[in-house]
């Protein structure tokens, strides 16, 4: 049994941690929060380290490594609260093009995405909770019409993977966003370090990605894979929020004692540790399924996702609580984690959607979970 990352993968993680510690301090994250816009320099730095192309084949300019390396690095992006379009461009768009694109589509986009020269995004939602019936955008004769909102990183993306109706069924289409038929509107959001936009397509030139009518099924596959990677961002964020809370509890004095000597605080932190630990173990389960292409990936991904969303929210909100009034100041970093924990909880579909998927998949398998 080797239910852990191996030495080489851990080294990769360390490299990412060193790089992000040096280049992506919370001051830098704040710049994006405080209206500084997209940090293209940091994005280029991450690209030069090879982190964007980890799971992209070498022939398309990537490193051609596996998902475990990408999971390890995702955890570090989560720890650092990286204000970067990784979820959209790497976990979603690159994966979509890699898995479902034609050789031409792959050659056109993957090298640019791996190099950080192009940013991808996924546009599926249309102003309400996404269901198989909620899509109104249409694709016909190579043109796309409709509006998508919110689109994560839609404000800065160069290419979009769009869910659209093609006749009676749903397809995925690929749209180059550098054209006249596209309007963008940046939206106010809980976590401006990862922007949101509305994209409107008016007779925009588009090409199908993958098979006609398979859009919904392909989307589910993409969301499952991305859910595992996002779970790693979430456990990275949860761990760091827990560490922040622990450190403050050791430092802050009240009633002549460290606040970390009060059991209410100790037990709060212990419970944060418990949910972070369960989420980490579930994320590893997801990573195992993703990296081996196991048939139980849908179950593992939903398990990892639900668990990681709970843990990051739990740790981020209680980190504020441990910090007291200081925790509610703009100056302290607590709200950065609080914002990101909620942003990630709502990306890829919210918690009730994932709970629904998890129970449906477990009931279908009705296979024993616990040993």
């Amino acid at each position, binding site marked *: 049994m*080797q239910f852990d990352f191996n030495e080489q993968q851990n080294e990769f993680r360390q490299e990412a941690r060193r790089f992000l510690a040096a280049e992506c301090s919370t001051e830098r994250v704040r710049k994006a929060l405080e209206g500084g816009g997209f940090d293209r320099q940091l994005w280029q730095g991450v690209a030069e380290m090879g982190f964007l192309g980890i799971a992209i084949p070498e022939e398309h300019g990537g490193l051609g490594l596996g998902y475990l390396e990408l999971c390890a690095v995702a955890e570090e992006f989560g720890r650092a609260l990286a204000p970067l379009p990784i979820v959209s461009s790497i976990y979603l768009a690159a994966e979509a093009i890699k898995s479902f694109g034609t050789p031409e589509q792959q050659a056109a986009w993957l090298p640019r995405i791996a190099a950080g020269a192009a940013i991808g995004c996924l546009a599926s939602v249309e102003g309400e909770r996404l269901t198989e019936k909620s899509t109104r955008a249409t694709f016909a004769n190579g043109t796309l019409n409709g509006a998508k909102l919110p689109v994560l990183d839609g404000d800065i993306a160069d290419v979009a993977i769009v869910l659209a109706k093609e006749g009676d069924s749903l397809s995925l289409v690929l749209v180059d966003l550098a054209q006249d038929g596209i309007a963008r509107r940046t939206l106010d959001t809980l976590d401006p370090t990862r922007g949101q936009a509305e994209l409107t397509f008016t007779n925009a030139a588009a090409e199908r990605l993958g098979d006609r009518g398979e859009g919904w099924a392909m989307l589910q596959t993409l969301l499952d894979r991305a859910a595992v990677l996002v779970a790693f961002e979430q456990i990275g964020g949860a761990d760091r929020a827990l560490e922040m809370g*622990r450190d403050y509890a050791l430092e802050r004095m009240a009633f002549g*004692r460290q606040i970390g*000597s009060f059991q209410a605080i100790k037990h709060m932190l212990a419970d944060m540790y418990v949910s972070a630990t*369960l989420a980490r173990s579930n994320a590893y389960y997801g990573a195992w399924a993703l990296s081996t292409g196991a048939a139980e990936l849908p179950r593992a991904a939903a398990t990892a996702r639900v668990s990681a969303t709970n843990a990051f929210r739990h740790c981020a909100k209680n980190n504020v609580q441990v910090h007291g009034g200081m925790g509610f100041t703009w100056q302290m970093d607590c709200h950065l984690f609080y914002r990101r924990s909620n942003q990630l909880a709502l990306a890829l579909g919210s918690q009730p959607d994932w709970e629904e998927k998890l129970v449906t998949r477990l009931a279908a398998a009705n296979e024993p*979970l*616990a040993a």
Partner: protein
Amino acid sequence: MNFDDTPEEAAFRAEARAWIDANAPKHLHPILSGSGFGTSAEAGEIDMLAEAKKWQKAKRDAGWACLHWPKEYGGRGASPMERVIWNQEEGVYAQLSFTFIIGQGMCGPTVMAWGSEEDKQRLLPPLAAGEDIWCQMFSEPAAGSDLAGLRTRAVQDGDEWVVNGSKIWTSGAHISQYGILLTRTDPTVAKHKGLTMFWVDMRSPGIEVRPILQAHGQSGFNEVFFTDLRIPDSQRLGAVGNGWNVSLTTLMNERLSIGSGMSTGFEPLLDYATRAPGPSGGRLVDDPSIRSKLADWATKASGLKYTSMRALTALSKGEQPGPENSIGKLVAGSTMQDIAMFALDQQGEMGVLTDPELAAHAARFQQTLMRSPATRIEGGTDEILRNIIAERVLGLPGDVRVDKDVPFEKIPTRA
């Protein structure tokens, strides 16, 4: 990342599986797999005791008892990983060994670490063979979580010690031949410093065992009274005054039994929910109002399962299990209690019935409802486990202790 056995582990697993398949008491399978989850500690009921002893003896004779113990003491000298593989393969039949768990898992290792060679030769092989049952006499009415506050007094008299006092909640004392006993030998020093450990023959004069009727109506634990009990000094485990350290050996060994995986009850719940009818027709599992809860428990069950896989991976690399393993019982205890109550609710007014013929799922959820409070108390309460995580894993300060450096006899005993 994989769950695969090494070739050696696979060979070991195949050997264990073949032996179990050929030798296990298969007629007991339905009883063992049908009992309430989390209720296994009560499996030592009279009719099962003989079966338990038979299974243990068979295992010992074939070299499958106390796998991690040295061969000379009745074990197999197996690696920690082999022990885990055995546990996985033994499956429901492992419940038969619960009667011996305190002896083999806690008392035996304590004797092995602190006893004389003569004691080890004499006491350990029959323990491995299931001929002897052992109990752990630590807790007292005034000393549970605060174990070092115990008052059972041992006074030296030549080559012997004279013991007076009493223990409580001693599991299995009524069926035990031996026990380990933590006593106070010096009340004039600080509480942790004046303790001394012994092993005792439970048939000695001066010991009286009175079963306690437990909240769920069964008797698994006891009160044990000592009246001028005489213990030879040769039965002392560790130095006089070193009892606290010796007791840590016992308690640490509890932690080594990872990998057996504590049930949260989610598996039976899911099974139940996919079979039972829901409130508006269809299956219970399709009721939208319960799915969020099911999802939450699913992640707890799976989280514990894969946490133990990670712990096993660390173990197979030779790392020692640490205080982080406290999370298993902490999560499983309250989850199984919540699941049991939830399952009863789903049964409507029928949920109150305990007759296995009438109650859903052969009344397993009712059994668990009644047993689960104990899981959250025995072997470290939920609150003590949170303290352990906070202090030993996260490095937070210990609780303020007003009694720490005070001579034991000067510690106030009333508010």
